[in-house]
């Protein structure tokens, strides 16, 4: 039940925002719990946006993942020497 689905904020009116879940699914959700502006990505849980997703951090995650994998490989190469 802690399922939360990412969506893009299309427009905001007061505490209610129209968000796009992709694939043509647009719904109104409550955004009282977060500070958002149009084009932000939010995590939506049971009709409420609970957190703003950071695109920079998402890119950073992938960079870190590659780093973890590569760091391991570099270390091993060094070990072999």
């Amino acid at each position, binding site marked *: *039940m*802690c*399922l*939360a689905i*990412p*969506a*893009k904020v299309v427009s905001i009116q007061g505490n209610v925002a129209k968000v796009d879940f*992709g694939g043509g699914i647009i719904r109104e959700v*409550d955004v*009282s*719990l*977060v500070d958002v502006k149009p084009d932000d*990505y939010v*995590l939506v*849980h*049971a*009709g*409420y946006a*609970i*957190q703003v*997703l*950071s*695109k920079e*951090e*998402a*890119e*950073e*995650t*992938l960079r*870190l*993942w*590659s780093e*973890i*994998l590569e760091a*391991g490989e570099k270390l091993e190469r060094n070990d072999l020497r």
Partner: protein
Amino acid sequence: MFEHLKFRDPKLAKRVVEKIHEVAPKRDTVKICHVCGTHEWTITHYGLRSLLPQNVEVIAGPGCPVCITPASEIDEAVQLALKGVVVTCFGDVLRVPGSEKSLLDAKAEGADVRVVYSALDAVKMAEKEPDKEFTFFAIGFETTAPSTALEILKMPPKNLSFLVSHRLIPPAMELLLGIGDLHIDGFIAPGHVSTIIGLKPYEIFPKAYRMPTVVAGFEPLDVLFAIYMVLKQIKDNTARLENEYVRAVSWEGNAKAQELMHKAFQTVDGEWRGLGKLPSSAFKLREEHRTFDAREKFGVKISRGRDLLPGCQCHLVMIGKIEPTECPLFMKACTPQKPMGACMVSAEGTCSIWAKAINTTENRIA
């Protein structure tokens, strides 16, 4: 969204799996516990267990809020419904067994029970029909509790009350560590609960229990990386709190949501289905909001509930002590179509997830 970022890149997955095999201990069994129904879904749906070394076990803790709601609180909702109050609840809750009846049984007897998508739907319904009494059955962990708090603090219509049954995740994780024969070696902490509470409440696990703890997201790669991060800590003989889900979880969490929860609720001891009473693990409406408390408003009183039917092993499945397939009722007397235990009811229950995965596999073979 972020599709171009390839959170499901099979090549990357292959490399993480290789890494997992490299850092995993060669002989000793390692048990990693997650506490989230959505993590269990990702792990089972994508077959992640089959990618791990034989001695690395991933077990599911009490991470399904519907499953852990005790029968006594379902009984309270049933009692309210039979008294003529319109009970609004999330769809998952409808079939969860109480001591004698589920809310669906009450509905079949003529009670007005309605499924809602959010607390706000309950508010709208109550506003639309001011001559009827409504209750919102507020179930869920820290992810869901802020929305209930918000609606209570926004002063809902007078004919709407709240049956608050929210539970908190960190106390449940502590319970698992107290179970002597469970032998957990690391935690994967639930990402969406953490978007609200942040990282801080998990600090105790590495500090006091020397338990590697990684907060993880819900893409298959998120979970694989979290498993790798826990195993790496075990290999390095260290215990740290790490955040794999940086794109959604910060150290301090959602301060606005925390403030709302604090204003609306106080923390009290709470019953968990089949697990007994856990200290400081539940929310109760604060004194100043008691006019919205359905229990007080309608004098609901249930002293004891029957959490488990004879033979049902939900309490052991919920703490990861046994796998669903070890329960004698699994897919025999207890199926998703005719569930006997709460873990088979909810879409996030371990038994339900396993049952559906088995069905899918069989279908594919056929």
